[in-house]
């Protein structure tokens, strides 16, 4: 599964993308795995209320299932326009 990071999440983790083999059932489970990896991941995912998630390029939420999912992205609230 591709895990993408944007904006300050990308900067805090220090990379735009990870390729991850995971058995995580939900986005929240995936976040727990990532937090456990390294301090910079723990820092990036410290406050989930400051984060948004997209599952296969659709805006989603942390309880979303990862069954069959190819791409998950984490980022702060969007500031387009």
């Amino acid at each position, binding site marked *: 599964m591709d895990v*993408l990071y*944007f*904006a*300050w999440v*990308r900067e805090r983790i220090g990379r735009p993308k990870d390729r991850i083999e995971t058995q995580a059932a939900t986005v929240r489970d995936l976040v727990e795995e990532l937090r456990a990896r390294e301090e910079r991941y723990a820092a990036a995912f410290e406050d989930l209320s400051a984060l948004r998630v*997209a599952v296969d*390029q*659709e*805006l989603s939420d942390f309880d979303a299932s990862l069954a069959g999912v190819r791409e998950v*992205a984490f*980022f*702060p*609230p*969007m*500031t*387009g*326009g």
Partner: protein
Amino acid sequence: MDIRVQEAAFDLGDEARAFAERQRGMGAVVTFTGIVRDLDGGDLDVMEIEHYPGMTEAAIEKIGQEALSRWNLGDILVIHRYGRLRPDDLIMMVATSARHRVDAFQGAEFLMDFLKSRAPFWKKEVTGQDAAWVAARDEDEDALSRW
């Protein structure tokens, strides 16, 4: 529906004229243009705009389809830049056409409200040695609830 996510600059005059000219039977055209501004009175050097290639286009397409389904619109144009922009550069524009002015205005406002908070763009302001990600504003999130 014409959606363009691009690094290159665009010309508001050329785009507005071309959009209006290709409408048929539409009495009203509304445009909105967003411009890089140093609203805090600091010394903004660069605005960097990051986006999520692939998702960006799909998200804007979805917002546009929703607008078309809610109002009696003739056409929609959305241009949104990414990359390194300077003060006074145009960031983005939307245009809508409709038979009547209320639809054109409402459609454009709807597009803007959703592009602000539901299209995957992130802005970073670079001022001298400092750089800061622009925080989402609560009022932008609140604006969605009126639709």
